[in-house]
Structure formats: structure tokens, C-alpha cells
């Protein structure tokens, strides 16, 4: 059976070789944090990391990924949801409907690993994901918060975190 290295584990599946990685993750491995938005690598909702690089998994045949290549999905980005990008996202209330945000976060994490202090042009070039709710300015602000060391006050949004369901 084909094997994939996902979030630090070797997992097997029985999908046909031409099945896109997206659908193997979602339907064979139960990792539904990675989203289907277009199926043609336009929207970026399906973005995962393969060996650290952002990849649109909806057009990547599962068989084209070798067991030696490390796939990381949103579920594996951090153990406790506390990757600096996730923390900045929560602090600035970036998501609206949230459907595109797994892909946004994975794209942003890859960008910041590659360029810890990205310029606006770097952000524009790397963050080509579509968000129909229009969270772009908070996405940009959150990336800058991470780049500046993680203090959300630097974004100037003054969001009060006092509820159980949110992280300060």
C-alpha cells in the first residue's frame, strides 16, 4: 500500500495513484483541516508543506509524493496550535468564515520561514490565496506581527481577549 509521511508519521492509504494529495489527506487520512476550494491550484485553500515548501495539494497526485518527503498539514503545524503564525492569527482575529485560513496560515508559515522579515512585496508575492470574506489586511498585519517578534499590540487593533474560547 502507498505510504505518505504526514505530520511526522508514516501513514498508508488505498487511494488510486492519481488521486490528488488533498483528497488522500481529507478522505483517507481524516485530516480535514486542509480544504477543497477550487481543485485547480487557484485559491490555495489546500496549501500544505512538502519538505517545508508550500504546495497546492489539490493538483499534486499522491503518488508523486515520495515516502521520504515530509508533508505537514495545518493539524501538524504545531502540537498545541501555538505556532507563532497561529498565535498571531488568533490574537488579531484574522479569520472570518475561516475556510481559507488553513491555507493562508500554511502559506504564511512557509513565507516567514523563508523570509523572517518579509516586505509588503514579499507578502504579496507569497500570499496568493483567495479569501472571499476579505481578511487580507489582517493576514498582512498578522504576518507583520510575527515578523516583529509576536507582540500583537504592534498591529494596533486593540482586540480584547477575555473569553474562554480565545487565546490572549
Amino acid at each position, binding site marked *: 500500500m502507498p505510504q505518505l509521511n504526514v505530520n511526522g*508519521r*508514516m*501513514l*498508508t492509504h*488505498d*487511494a*488510486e495513484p492519481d488521486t*490528488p494529495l488533498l*483528497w488522500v489527506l*481529507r*478522505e*483517507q*487520512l*481524516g*485530516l*480535514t*483541516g*486542509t*480544504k*477543497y*476550494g*477550487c481543485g*485547480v491550484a*487557484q*485559491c490555495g485553500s489546500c496549501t500544505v508543506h512538502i519538505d517545508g515548501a508550500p504546495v497546492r495539494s489539490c493538483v499534486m497526485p499522491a503518488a508523486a509524493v515520495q515516502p521520504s518527503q515530509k508533508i505537514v498539514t*495545518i*493539524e501538524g503545524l504545531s502540537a498545541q*496550535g501555538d505556532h507563532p503564525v497561529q498565535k498571531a*492569527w*488568533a490574537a488579531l*482575529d*484574522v*479569520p*472570518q*468564515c*475561516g*475556510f481559507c485560513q*488553513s491555507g493562508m*496560515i500554511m502559506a504564511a508559515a512557509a513565507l516567514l520561514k523563508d523570509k523572517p522579515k518579509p516586505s509588503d512585496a514579499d507578502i*504579496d508575492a507569497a*500570499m*496568493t490565496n*483567495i479569501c*472571499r*470574506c*476579505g*481578511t487580507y*489586511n*489582517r*493576514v*498582512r498585519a498578522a504576518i507583520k506581527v510575527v515578523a516583529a517578534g509576536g507582540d500583537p499590540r504592534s498591529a494596533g*487593533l486593540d*482586540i*480584547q*481577549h*477575555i*473569553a474562554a*474560547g*480565545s*487565546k490572549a
Partner: protein
Amino acid sequence: MNTFEVTRREFLGTAAAAGSLVVGFAVPQGAAAQGAAPEVNAWVVVQPDDRVIIRIARSEMGQGTLTGLAQLVAEELECDWARVTTEYPTPGQNLARNRVWGNFSTGGSRGIRESQDYVRKGGAIARTMLVQAAADEWKVPPAECRVDKGVITHTGTNRRTSYGKVATAAARLTAPTEVTLKDPKDWKLVGKRLARLDTVDKTTGRQVYGMDLKLPGLLNAAIKDCPVFGGKLKSFDETVALKRPGVKKVVRVGDSAVAVVADTWWRARTALDAMPVEWDYGPNAKVSSADFAQVLKAGLDADNAVVGNSNGDVRAALAGAARRIEAVYAYPHQNHATMETMNATAKWTPASGGSPARCEVWTPTQNGEAALAAVGAASGLPLPQCEVYKLHLGGGFGRRGQSDWIRQAVAIAKELPGTPVKLIWSREDDMQHGAYHPITQCKLQAGLDAQGNVTALHMRISGQSILAALFPQNVRDGKDPVVFQGLNNGGGEAMIGYSFPNLLVDHAMRNPHVPPGFWRGVNLNQNTIYLECFIDEIAHATGQDPLALRRKLMAQHPKHLAVLNAVAERAGWGKPAPDVGGQKVYRGLAQTHGFGSYVAACAEVSVDAGGEMKVHRIVAATDCGHAVNPQQIEAQIEGSFAYGLSAALYGECTVKDGAIEQKNFDTYPAMRMQQMPKVESIVMPSGGFWGGVGEPTIAVAAPAVLNAIFAATGKRIRELPLKNHSLKRA
């Protein structure tokens, strides 16, 4: 590294198949599933550990209404916000309890403004009962007790208890019928920039959207519906699909669609794609967008039209005017393009052993009650034998107020009794089977006197009616009142902000075969483009400053004017905008009133010699009366520019041979990060009313930018989208 084996069968079968890979089933089951504590009333459950569950009837689709409504309940409840969580009651529970939660429909920016009164009362009633329970226990008058963050104190003796300790006793009390709501000046949670309650799970992948639902034994369905609206399914060769791996069944759905059911969606989809299907395209097989344009154009001068707003005698005033200005505008069909495509999971359980048949649906819907009615109709079962579990929406924008995909899912599930089936539309299905932004054209004629004063305005709208398609019972004497959004004389919902001595706004209804729907902003979108760009045209034609002309015409509309003045002042109207990257920057204005709120925008754009247009900065103001959560209102304002400018720049669904030509984001583009301008939001609630915030700002996005483009280039764009026009200098 450990090696785990998780086969699909294990995963789809019993829960938590292997090791620490978490694949448990979290099956949403509606209210009262979270714990054993009795509800204090319909809106409030208090757990023994003082955790407060607030019930939310409206749907969360990103607009933040879940948090805003919880703030309103918690404000009156006086509970500890840090211990608040929320849950959805189900439409079936609402039906069984005589609609105790009121309307579930979430559209028209109504979530907060139309339920604020009764949800606040729900919180106040629960507080009254909880305090009464403590007072009864202490045998003191409740007036001697005070409450803060869920802790009740008897002021005389300083005895204390908490909501969690008295909740069971409170639940047994009779609810008071009269409660007094707080004066807004005493609000502690409402008006605060509180973080949303639903953010963290959206950053970890844990948020379950409709498409993500896992149920034991779940199968998946892909569907093909006739690409031409009004066409029919002629034939299909199911043997081809049934030979493919994982395929369980091929199902005819209604008279226009066929679905393949398989163990996984990808196998269902690919089998469906391999299966030969023949269509009868029907009477619309040769229709194109150009045909619609001709029909609408004829309506601009038709004798018969329905009046939406009028004063004076426009025809006489135009005939006697010293000068007339005329322009024709047009707005295209557009798809909502929610990031999550339409989907629903349906389970049909046949009658057995005395239990009646049952049909359950899990789906992201903006209208739970309409979804329940659709399940009843599609299953043929009485509503008490049906249920809908609302799942989180990956975008709504009006599309998910309809239930067409739910009826399909039920029809498929009926063919597989006892098995839950999840129907997922592909992006192509979603693009070609939308409920499109209606198309209209508008002819505007202004009459001017010798001094350049506007003496008359006639707006003739020709085009599509949403109500005629979706709620024909609400079209009376040929009038669809929603057509006139933003152009009404009074009413508090969507009022024109100008006064003209002679005004006529009328509508010649022309309905093409493409199904229309409520599309975020609805008819306010194009009406505001028509009026705000035309006001700009009058200003330039008469040599007046666009702000000065508006101020003259808006003297009797102080709230409209206040938001306009706010953006003009913040943007620095009257002083030149600083160059950006060596390009001169130009400004444009727009204002409107819709969904109960007053909004305005000032856009700053540059256009280079090659015609490349860039929106650099937007200043936007909203007066929504009461502002429940300003940071979320700002998020809605920003998002409105992404949605509204995507529409203005790219949004167009064209029809060829009866079918929508655009099938995915490559041909129906949306704005991305690079095109997104800076947005400075001014939230300026003036009190005394409740306006919506999810939609009105969409309407000012396009005209503010179009007016700035005119300032930059002298080119007046009257037909959207902008991608069809060159801004290159001649």
C-alpha cells in the same frame, strides 16, 4: 518514528482507528447536547461549573454575528464573559417549541439588528430568574441582591453564590414577562472590541465545516446538473461508473441531474466524469448574455414601469430643463463564490419497529428553517420527522439562504436507506449552478436649470427581480420593492440621501432564465453605482466639486451627510493626495444607506500610462446606530471592499448557449492580497437605531473607485466589470 496504519475502511468505519491519530467523530446534534444542566430559559444554559452556554439561532458564516449576539445576551445576563460558549439550537427544536428562538434566517445583515431586542430580553429574563433563585434560597427580596460576572451577592449580609449553583432552582421558576433592558450608556460588553468566540479552531484545522463532517458509514456523492438552466437529463450509462473503484450507486436526481455515490468523494467525482451523460438543453439552449442585454435595453424606454419612488413631475421638469444629462449603466450576473462549495449530508432512516421514517440533514445554511422545510418537501415526511443540524459555513454571502443542494442530497440519500450520504458540489458545479447577482441596466436623466442646479432626476431601472424568482408572493401589482434598495423615500431600511425637486425611480421588470439570488449587498450594489457615479457625472458636467454638489443635495439627510463628511475629512478631500511610487493619486466619493446603516467611502487610486489601476487607500465610515463589536464591524467593512472590489474589477458570469461560461477562479477571478487596498474604518454609531454591517459597505466600494478612476483618467466606466475596459491613456 512510529508507523501507523490507517486504512480508509477503518477511518470510515469505527472511530479513532489507529494510535494517536485523532479521527474521532464529532457529530453535531443541536442544543442541549453539551451537558446535563437544565436551561434557565431558551437562550441560556448555566453549567454547575458556572460555564454559560448561550444559544444562537442565526448562522455564523464569518460575519461575527455569533459573537455579537452572545455579547448582547451576556450583557443583560451579567455573566462572566470569560466562561461563555455558544451552541446552535436546531430548526426542529425551534419548530417543536413554537419558534421560541424566532427567525433563523441569516441574511440582509439582519442577524443582530432584528434579534437584538428579544435576545437581550432573553438574557435579562435569565438573570432575573437566577437572582430570584438565590434570593429565594436566602429568603431575601431579590432587589437586595446584586450580580456581577455571574456571582450573586446579598448586599445586606454579603452572602454570595454563583449562577452555576442556583441554575437548577432558577430553571424551575416561572419566567417574568416584563424585564427592563439596560440603558446603552451602562453597557459593559456591548460596544467593546471583544475577540471572537470562534477564532482558535479556525487556526488549527479543528473547525468542522459542512464539507468536513464525519459520520459512521458515510458515503459521498458527486453530482452533475444540466449546465443549461431549464434543461433536463436525457440519459446516462451507469455501467461505466459502476465499474469504477468504490462506486456504490448511480442516482437520477430530479429531472435534470445525476449523481454517483462512492466511498470517497474523489472516487465519486472521477466516476461521474467518466460516465457518458446526455442532456436535453431545453428552450434556453441558444440564449446568450447579449440577448439579455438587448431585452434589458428595451426596458429602459418601455412605456410600462413600476414606480418605486417619486415626487414632483419629472417628465415636465425634464422637458422644461435648460440642460439635460443622460447616461446608461449596466451591472452583470455574478456568482457568490463562497470558498466552501455547496454541500449537505443527508440520512434517510426508514420506518421500523414502530418508529416512523426519519430524514436528517447536516449542512451549512443561512436559513435553518427553510432548510428544514426543504428536507420535509424532498423527503415527503412531515416536519416533526425531519431535522437539520446547522454546520459552520465556509462563507454564505446570500447563496446559502437557498436550499437547492439540500433537496438534491435528500433525494440521493432516499435511495440509500440508513446510510448517510454527503453531497459535495465541485467548484465547477458551484459556478454553473449559482443563484446569481441579478442583472440590471439603468438609464439616468438629470434636468438642470440655467444655474446648473439639479431640478429633476429620473432613474429607470430595467432588469431582473430576485423576488419574482424566489418569493413571487411578495411581488404585488408587479412591484418588487427590493429592486429599489437605497433609492427609497424613508422607511429606515435603504433610503436615498438626496432631495430633488422632481424625482422618479421606476422599474421595468425583465427576467432572463438565469436564476437570481440575494448576493451580499443585493440591489443596493448596482443602485449605488448608478446613482453615485451619475451624481459625479453631474458634478463634472456642471463644474462643481463632487463633495460640494452632494452637500447641497443632502442638506435634508443629515445622517447620510455625516458619514460622507467623515470620510471626506479623514481622507483630506480638497487637498491633493500624495503621490505613490511616482504616480499621481486621485480620489472618488460614494455614500448610501442600506440594511439600516449609513455608509460612505473615499477611494484613492492611481492609473499609470499603461492603464494599470491601483487602489491605494480607502477611508470608510459606518453609522449603524449601535455598534456591538467595533473590531468586528471594521472586519466587515474591510471585507466589504474585498467583496465589492472583486465584483467591480472582475465579477462577471456570462451566458453562452444557455449556460454560465465561467467555471472556476481562473475565469472568475477574485481579488487577492496584492490588489487589496489599505482600509481606514470610521465606526461612528449615533445611537437610537440598529443597522446592519455585513453588506452596506459593499455598495460604496465600486462607485468610490469608479469616481476616482474618472478623476484620474477622464474615463467614465458605466458597465461592469472593469476588466472589460482599457484605462490606457489615448
